[in-house]
């Protein structure tokens, strides 16, 4: 944690030195968040962010012209596609319905702080991440990135914006610029300043209810939530950026793991695309982080998501299998087991997951606490 803080401070200093006041490109961090880490090779500029915003919302970058990044990450749904269980992409064969992925669309809010992207962390940066959904056969369905570049190089609006943002035009515009612009836009989507932040970091005693305060005690105590959903002394990302097998999805697939893991490794050795394999086959998807690292100790493990705005981003978990926050709390209280799961948890369960013995009251308090993590922009937005 200390290392990340230092890096963030350095980057902020670099921004000021480059003559771009932070205020020009992004407002100051809201209460409860550290400075946004900005990569050295992709500094924030207003023109780049405006370009990225446009690219993010452009439906033309999909094979059937109906899917943009913003389709699964809707601004007014806290950048998710709530209440969908798993994301919907391009039209299915025959034009009936949509092709669906295997995973719930995570919010982009505060993704700027993630050290890896995607539920299984297979991308190391927002820049790298942004290029993949275009080519995924169930998401945007393009065969190559060429159609994107054709539009970026010819649409007069884009020609102008790429020139302003990168000083490039024609063949000079490549996916590098597209990726950087989208990532720069995503780094502006940060939010905190929730009732919790006002209470915890702003010391406003009445910002949250007594029940939520009790819930906070459960969160950092008996519930052990804070072990992964990290809170620091002066800010809270609510994620440890690590991967855990918490029993979701993998409990049901546990008896298939020997076959699935062997088949997956064989296919990967022969050059199969992880991106396509995990998002198109529901069972392979449950292998989680293992599909990226090939290591047995992360079988069924997925990235800890942030809890900010969690009350408005239902349903929950990587597969969207839990409908309410109470369902989520119950899952943890049962030691990593939900209704409908096999009688035993999977053998690969993370060590920190164990029965919690919380009372109904404690579970309700915990939910009340999580409801205080909603950012003002989404007050009143209820999607469950």
């Amino acid at each position, binding site marked *: 944690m200390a290392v990340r803080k230092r890096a963030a401070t350095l980057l902020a200093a670099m921004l000021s030195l480059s003559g771009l006041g932070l205020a020009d490109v992004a407002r100051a961090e809201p209460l409860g968040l550290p400075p946004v880490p900005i990569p050295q090779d992709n500094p924030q500029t207003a023109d780049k962010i405006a370009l990225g915003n446009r690219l993010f919302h452009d439906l033309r970058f999909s094979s059937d012209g109906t899917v943009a990044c913003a389709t699964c990450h809707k601004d007014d749904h806290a950048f998710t596609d709530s209440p969908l269980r798993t994301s919907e992409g391009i039209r299915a064969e025959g034009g009936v319905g949509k092709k669906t992925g295997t995973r719930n669309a995570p919010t982009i809010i505060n993704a700027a702080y993630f050290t890896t992207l995607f539920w299984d962390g297979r991308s190391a940066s927002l820049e790298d991440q942004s290029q993949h959904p275009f080519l995924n056969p169930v998401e945007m369905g393009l065969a190559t990135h060429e159609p994107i570049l054709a539009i970026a190089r010819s649409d007069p609006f884009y020609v102008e914006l790429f020139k302003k943002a990168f000083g490039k035009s024609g063949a000079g515009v490549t996916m590098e610029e597209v990726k950087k612009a989208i990532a720069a836009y995503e780094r502006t989507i940060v939010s905190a300043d929730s009732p919790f932040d006002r209470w915890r970091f702003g010391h406003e005693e009445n910002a949250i209810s007594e029940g939520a305060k009790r819930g906070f005690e459960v969160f950092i105590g008996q519930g*052990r939530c804070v072990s992964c959903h990290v809170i620091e002394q002066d800010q809270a990302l609510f994620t440890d950026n690590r991967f855990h097998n918490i029993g979701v999805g993998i409990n049901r697939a546990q008896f298939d793991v020997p076959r699935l893991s*062997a088949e997956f*490794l064989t296919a990967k050795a022969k050059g199969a695309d992880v991106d396509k394999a995990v998002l198109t086959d529901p069972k392979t998807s449950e292998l989680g982080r293992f599909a990226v690292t*090939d290591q047995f*100790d992360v079988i069924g493990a997925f990235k800890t998501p942030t809890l900010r705005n969690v009350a408005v981003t239902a349903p929950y978990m990587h597969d969207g299998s839990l409908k309410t926050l109470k369902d989520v709390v119950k899952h943890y209280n049962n030691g990593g087991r939900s209704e409908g799961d096999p009688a035993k948890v999977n053998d690969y*369960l993370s*060590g920190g997951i164990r029965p919690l013995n919380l009372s109904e009251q404690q579970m309700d308090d915990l939910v009340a606490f999580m409801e205080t993590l909603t950012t003002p922009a989404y007050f009143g937005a209820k999607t469950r």
Partner: protein
Amino acid sequence: MSEFITRRSVLAGAGAGAALTTLPISMVTLAFGGTREDFTFTYISDAHIQQIKGASFVRNWDQGLKRAVAEANLVKPESDFVIFGGDLAQLGKREELDHGAEMLSKLKGKLHVVMGEHDYYLDLGDYWSKLYGPHYYSFDHKGVHFVVLNSILTSEQWTFHRWPTAEQRMLEMAGLDNPNGSPFMVGDKQRKWLANDLAKLDKKTPLVVFSHSPLQKIYKGWNFWTDDADEVQALLQPFDSVNVIYGHVHQIQYNQIGNISFNSVMATAWPWPYPQSYAQAESHLPVLTIPMNRADPFFERDATGWQLIDIGSGRVTARYQLWDNDQRTVAFDHKAGRPVDVAYQEPTQRRLPQTHY
């Protein structure tokens, strides 16, 4: 099947973070001459299955062994056999041995089991024998001679004449840093057996000895010690290549004494020295005597694990699978003439302990 394992390729593979699952199995020419089929085996150790009451067992230790068995069953190509390195039980009870044995029974392939002091000092290994057979034995596999020793014995006086009950004897031996404990030994009778067993062999035959305690004198205060280690080593030294693989210490250790390479294996129960537990649940760890600021208290499996071992070079290459942590490989360096940790974690690379909450 044309790839040859040499020391170089094994080390290079380890350095590149080669997965267990991609280990090359092939026909190899070994350092000690001749051609034979290479093989691997997996090694799980120190599960310390502990009964709380009735059908209630300490969850952490159960989960550690269950997970080790499940992962061992995923290894491809399948390993030739599995060794369990001792301390299946915590207090030697039938319930604990049965419960542990049930978990081990899910392992694919042949299982060889080593006697640990926690399995022994309640009934002096009677029930363990009903499950797993003789306390010490040897077998041959693809040109390698394997010896399994019971290295946790001690004097007649301590064992038979000192304690009012068997339970008391077990508790004294299970205690850490306990001045009432006794150093372990292999003993006269077993050393005689070993001398006879080895007498039949050509000195070029590669030897692998499994013991629970180290067969070397590391630190008496922690019982990382085998009192007649020197005499046992003297029997082993005449062989060109000897590997002693031991459990008990719950950490990575390696050493070279003359021709003998020593490699420890990890525990599935807890690391030593162990961290103060973060758990709100009652802790069933033995009393903490050595503080540790390395392992992450939330991740109960941190600093525990198991390893896949191959002896393609005639010496042990141990690939440690450390749960929630980076993998490590200890391989024999023929130039240096001793095992080396090929990916020793520099201080700057180590994972810091959890400091928040």
